[in-house]
């Protein structure tokens, strides 16, 4: 029996037993996260720490009389133990619910149907990993994390809704160093192919060799810039904090609000969608609502819609697109343009090539301004030729400029980035992004 099939059997039995315990008027929604993960952390191509984590947690959403509570519980995977604990929790919820006022923005659970998606993979043999580290420990300064194992997400309710999503995947997320010069790499998938991994490492080594020249100090000011897909994708990290949210738009805290209101015109080359067709994450949310495969946010520079949860829809009297309750993007996808990646340096001419950005945050949401740092392989480019790596620079620039007047073009190719986040539990999901050529980008420090 695999972890996945064990959990499937346990989940089916547990949910049937719990639904049988409900009282008149009660509706119960259950959301499952289960994982059996191996983490191996490296420094200097050697193992710093290795941890295996087997964890199961269930969110219980109990509803009755215009009231709703969500409590969660860690689970053992043993039916009897978990059933007793769950029942005790539900009894606590019944008592606590009595103390809550009615919620005028109550979103009743519904039967949103059934779905099942499985992305099988095979476990990466530890020997491959150990052989790679042994072969390279004297010649390669590599830091990073290897992660593998199954992750399961499921959602069902007492109205017969039932969704199941499982994936078995791995990632090898790393940085390769030469002193204080570094490049970033990530090899991820369902089935480990040693040749592909070695090719990825070779590519990183080649990129690192470009950084041997003395670093150039750039003065603060405006520069023409090419953002590689990794840098573009990093913009989503801050846009996800209210930049996609309908509720934030209504409250005036959405950083893209001026574009949505038509006060600032974005480039016709800018098209951004929430795209579940990427297959990185399930399209059902914590209520079990299923989002459309594609949700256009901006199309050819024109605002279409923000991510709207059913609660926001109720509050602001607007249609829902079954977004996550917090209205963050789960699978953002920036559409490509017409610039061939191999022509990117030539099109940049003289300016700065950015492979990655770091630690972004809002500096003024009202005007969509963000700040952050350059990181990893960033170069000064003259006449289409890489001249030298640059010293790290801070930028402060508006997203409205980046996706508006200063957007020259996007590359024809895109890269998919799977999430490597693992706060509390292993994340799934990710994003897809092309490279971007900008006519102007402001560096401040």
């Amino acid at each position, binding site marked *: 029996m695999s972890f996945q099939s064990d959990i499937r059997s346990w989940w089916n039995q547990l949910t049937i037993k719990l639904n049988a315990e409900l009282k008149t008027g009660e509706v119960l929604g259950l959301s499952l996260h289960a994982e059996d993960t191996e983490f191996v*952390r490296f420094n200097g191509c050697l193992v710093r*720490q290795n*941890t295996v984590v087997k964890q199961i947690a269930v969110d219980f959403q109990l509803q009755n009389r215009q009231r709703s509570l969500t*409590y969660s*519980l860690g689970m053992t995977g043993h039916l009897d133990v978990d059933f007793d604990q769950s029942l005790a929790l539900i009894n606590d919820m019944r008592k606590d619910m009595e103390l809550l006022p009615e919620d005028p923005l109550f979103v009743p659970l519904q039967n949103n149907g059934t779905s099942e998606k499985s992305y099988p993979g095979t476990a990466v043999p530890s020997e491959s990993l150990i052989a790679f*580290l042994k072969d390279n420990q004297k010649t390669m300064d590599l830091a990073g994390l290897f992660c593998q194992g199954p992750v399961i997400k499921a959602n069902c309710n007492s109205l017969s809704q039932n969704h199941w999503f499982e994936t078995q995947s791995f990632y090898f997320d790393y940085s390769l160093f030469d002193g204080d010069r570094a490049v970033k790499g990530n090899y991820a998938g369902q089935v480990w192919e040693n040749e592909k991994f070695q090719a990825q490492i070779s590519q990183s080594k080649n990129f690192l060799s470009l950084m041997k020249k003395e670093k150039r100090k750039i003065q603060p000011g405006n520069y023409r810039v090419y953002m590689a897909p990794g840098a573009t994708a990093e913009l989503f990290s801050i846009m996800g904090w209210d930049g996609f949210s309908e509720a934030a738009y209504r*409250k005036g805290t959405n950083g893209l609000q001026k574009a949505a209101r038509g006060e600032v015109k974005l480039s016709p080359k800018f098209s951004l969608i929430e795209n579940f067709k990427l297959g990185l994450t399930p399209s059902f949310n914590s209520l079990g609502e299923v989002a459309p495969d594609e949700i256009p946010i901006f199309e050819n520079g024109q605002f279409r819609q923000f991510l709207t949860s059913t609660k926001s829809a109720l509050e602001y009297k607007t249609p829902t697109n079954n977004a996550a309750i917090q209205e963050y993007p789960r699978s953002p996808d920036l559409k490509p343009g017409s610039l061939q990646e191999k022509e990117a340096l030539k099109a940049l001419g003289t300016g700065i090539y950015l492979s990655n950005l770091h630690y972004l945050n809002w*500096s*003024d949401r009202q005007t969509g301004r963000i700040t952050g740092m350059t990181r990893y392989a960033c170069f000064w480019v003259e006449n289409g030729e890489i001249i030298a790596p640059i010293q790290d620079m801070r930028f402060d620039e508006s997203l409205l400029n980046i996706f508006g007047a200063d957007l020259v073009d996007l590359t024809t190719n895109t890269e998919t980035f799977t999430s490597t986040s693992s706060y*509390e539990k292993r994340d799934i999901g990710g994003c897809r992004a092309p490279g971007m050529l900008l006519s102007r980008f402001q560096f401040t420090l």
Partner: protein
Amino acid sequence: MNLPVDYWALKRVQEKTTHWFFRNEKPDTNTKSVDIGYMIEVMVNGHFAYAATSDFTEAGLKTAANKAVSNAKLYGQIALTNFPMTVRPVNQGEYVSPRRSELDSVSKKELSDIMVQACRELKKSSKVIESYAGAIFIETDFQTVTSHGARIHQNFDLITTDFRAIAQDKTETQTRTFNGMRGNCMQAGAEAIDAKSIYETCRTISDEAEQLLFAPNCPTMETDLLLAPDVMLIQIHESIGHPLEVDRILGDERNYAGWSFVQPKDFGTLKYGSDLMNITFDPTVEGEFASYGYDESGAKAERLYLIEKGVLKRGLGGLESQHRSKLPGVANFRSSSWNRAPIDRMANINLEPGAETMEQLVARTEKGILMRANCSWSIDDYRNKFQFGNEWAQEIKDGKLGQIFKNPNYRGSTVQFWNSLAGVSNADTLKSYGSPYCGKGEPNQAIRVGHRAPYCLFKNIAVFGGGA
């Protein structure tokens, strides 16, 4: 447990977390989580391996233990360091966080009533379009037993409160909070929920949110900068705490949050800041958010100077990092919960007080800006170039506070900035804040940190406001 290893430790963590939040007087986030799990740590030939499980049956723990043993042998072949047993001292002890009443002594009905009324107070200004009020209660119980006789039991009651008003006038929107997003963090019992004081705070937040709507943007200039304790919180955290983590200096964190500008040779010599800069690692402050008795290696926590009169003395390195680096460290080997291995973390990192009152600092400033309540933070991967945004600012002109400014930001470089420290207010002005969400590590871990500071005056700092 009878395991074929040189050492084992069994750690049990039970954590009950309640979020009780209201928005516009209506229930918003009302959740409770109960999380129980075990971490088994084993050492074979100097290499530690970890196996965590939420399956606390005997069979579940045995499976985890066997996995830890096999992985210790497997990855021990290519271990970065082979540690001696001295990195796991044999201590026995207990820590119980201070509380006068249990967290559940305030009923959910009572809590709901207080937060609904707090929402009403936050809407005292007619310009406030959204009010948000609530608290997070956390009860954590942490027990460790080891094969060599260590026994540690630590029990924490923790509270974070959050009050927020969003004010709007036409297309202008301003947010004002109670000391920044979830900055009000403490170890305390239910006595910390004081309705009268909450309502008073919420009325102030409401007034100030409206005032910000009609304030001009903070001007762009180089000027003297007076930072309130709820801004010093982030300044200490990002530009002192993280760069001094010794595992970071040793490169463990390079693929995630980054490296550090601090080098091992800098300890004892680097003039990090002016003579007024005195920074302590202090997990002994009663009620501060990240106080504890022992770290997870079993080392006893104690107050130690990291920076004294501006000179860097000591890093934030637990016993493993001390062994690797040969640098003096502290008891800070901590994990976020049962499912993550411990690494070097901040605890309470505090700036020690000076002699002046806050009013005296203002009075001796000819031209400057006072900033309160952090709302945006960013720093490079070596912890040099930072930019911090805040909610509220006031002009200081000829020794007096004047015009209010919105969207105040400032930026600088760490060592240059701290060497411009020109004034530190006295012990009466000390305030303790913290964060429940300090992120670090691979796999990722969000941990609780505390920061206590007075008002601090810095000379000639680049400040600026919002706008396109």
